[in-house]
């Protein structure tokens, strides 16, 4: 799709030729994830995580459809259908449930690495702004889906999570409380809320799959980025997706799935919260309400407003939390540096790692009971989060002097190989240009 040297689809079997003339679906697949999609030859392992996210989306949809066959979306039956029926009586039900539960966590892990890959290598920059923004839409849909899925077992954390998260809406003056009641279909989470969350939890993954298709479509117009951030110049800079990257993605997927299997089999509840094994009780709040780990940084931002300033503290918290994600939609215009890759931006690179540490600290601050110390740390790191995107990034992109970029992808690859081949001792004759021509 993207480059003139992309190999066109040539069906060999007469049946495939017959099909191609009538419905060119195999042609589309070949051009998207087959030999017809040229990919930069220098991708590192951080480029594996998009495919991995797709794999975990598939795992979630497949296990989820099966679990829905055994699940009762009623307040009386939900907890028992999950913890009694599915976990004990349904054949392999425990495995499917643990796979789904931890599949969500792994989906978020690979997605977070994918997002930070994009932040480091400037994947959000022209001409890939829409790829980035569609990715953020997927991320928002994932958050909504994960939240509603967590409500379905109707344990204490499910119930109180639903109460707190729908409570965000009541922060908005005048319309907030009616919106909350409308979203819940009642005054507190109950039957109506549970059944509509189930319906939407089943629907949203398919919407995600649709947006994933748009995300990949938009990506394949300019083609994949690469660790140097230098544009592809000619055919020597690329390799066909299949078999080169299908092989690399394949083995790496095996490695990550092994880690996933270890968690599912040996620590299935490590990432969850024990209180969700207590049936929902609308009259008693658990001593400590925390969301799932992948929401901790946002929960810390929510909690970091503890005093009123013109607007009520509660509204500030909710606005800041939404703003922390909506901000990322403007990233392509906030970071004006023409150099994409952080590898060639010495100042940006340092601030990038500070941001990573800051988000990890935010996660710590949001994941525990609100002690004064934890709140203070959360407030500082929440402030830094906004400082990074609103002040540091625009300043760095205008004042920084980037390092010289390689002439081409091929050039950077061959230079790297030569350096690796002779790490010490006398260097062999430098024949960089010669090798490049031979290649």
């Amino acid at each position, binding site marked *: 799709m993207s480059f003139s040297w992309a190999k066109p689809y040539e069906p060999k079997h007469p049946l495939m030729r017959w099909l191609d003339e009538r419905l060119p679906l195999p042609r589309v697949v070949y051009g998207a994830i087959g030999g017809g999609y040229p990919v930069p030859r220098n991708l590192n392992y951080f480029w594996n995580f998009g495919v991995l996210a797709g794999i975990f989306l598939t795992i979630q949809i497949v296990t989820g459809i099966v679990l829905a066959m055994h699940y009762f979306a009623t307040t009386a039956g939900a907890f028992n259908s999950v913890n009694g029926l599915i976990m004990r009586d349904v054949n392999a039900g425990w495995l499917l449930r643990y796979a789904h539960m931890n599949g969500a966590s792994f989906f978020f892990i690979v997605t977070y690495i994918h997002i930070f890959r994009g932040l480091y290598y400037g994947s959000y920059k022209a001409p890939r702004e829409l790829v980035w923004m569609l990715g953020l839409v997927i991320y928002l849909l994932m958050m909504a889906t994960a939240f509603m899925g967590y409500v379905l077992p109707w344990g204490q954390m499910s119930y109180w999570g639903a109460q707190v998260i729908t409570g965000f809406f009541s922060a908005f003056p005048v319309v907030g409380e009616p919106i909350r009641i409308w979203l819940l279909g009642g005054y507190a989470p*109950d039957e109506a809320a549970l059944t509509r969350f189930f319906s939407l939890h089943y629907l949203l993954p398919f919407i995600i799959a649709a947006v994933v298709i748009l995300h990949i479509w938009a990506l394949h117009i300019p083609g994949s980025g690469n660790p140097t951030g230098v544009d592809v110049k000619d055919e020597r800079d690329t390799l066909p997706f299949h078999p080169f990257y299908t092989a690399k993605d394949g083995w790496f997927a095996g490695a990550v799935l092994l880690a996933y299997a270890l968690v599912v089999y040996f620590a299935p509840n490590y990432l969850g919260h024990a209180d969700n094994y207590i049936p929902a009780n*609308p009259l008693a*709040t658990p001593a400590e309400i925390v969301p799932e780990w992948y929401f901790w940084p946002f929960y810390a931002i929510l909690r970091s*407003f*503890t005093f*009123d300033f013109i607007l009520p503290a509660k509204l500030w918290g909710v606005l800041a939390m939404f703003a922390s994600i909506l901000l990322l939609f403007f990233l392509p215009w906030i970071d004006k540096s023409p150099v994409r890759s952080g590898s060639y931006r010495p100042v940006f690179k340092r601030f990038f790692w500070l941001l990573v540490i800051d988000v990890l600290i935010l996660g710590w601050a949001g994941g525990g009971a609100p002690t004064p110390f934890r709140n203070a740390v959360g407030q500082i790191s929440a402030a830094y989060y906004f400082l990074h995107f609103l002040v540091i990034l625009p300043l760095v992109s205008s004042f920084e002097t980037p390092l010289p970029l390689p002439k081409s992808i091929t050039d950077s690859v061959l230079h790297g190989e030569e350096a690796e081949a002779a790490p010490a001792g006398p260097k062999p004759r430098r024949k960089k240009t010669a090798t490049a021509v031979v290649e």
Partner: protein
Amino acid sequence: MATKATSAEGSLDTGAEGVRRRDYLKVAAVSFAGVGGVVALAPLFVQMAPSADVLAMATTEVDISKIQAGQGIKAQWRKQPVFIRNLTPKEIAEADAVPLSSLRDPQTLAERTKPGKKNWLITLGVCTHLGCVPLGIGEGENRGPFGGYFCPCHGSEYDTAARIRQGPAPKNLFVPDYEFTSPTTVLIGGKGKK
């Protein structure tokens, strides 16, 4: 409109008269379909609001004859906890002693109770921050530094009139509509009854 249409499309179409007629039909048809479409969306919107069975449980009658001074009970109304507390004279005095100007959501205890029933404090047991159930209604629970309620989620502290004093909650605990149907029974949600 007419002149514009004539100059722009006069050569293509039959004339000014025909173009105007078509425009009129287009606008009318699309508006009609648009209004119809919006009306068709209405059921999809209103189905989300609380259904009749939820609204039917909008009142709760509670017997308060057994609650001694200093005690409280937790009742349930619209699936939400309601705190019914029989305040001691000391607690009433404490609540009355607070200057209104020092409150985030200024209200006197008298405004939050029924005339002549100042000892009966009836509020929702739902923290106005993010909806947790505060502690303090049960025997021996942490009532916080102001002797009322303490929310364990984010540390909101309420006084003996269930007014917010410290922490992130913006409002006092909500006082629902209720009435004393007899000296020892309370009907909560009285006005909500249809």
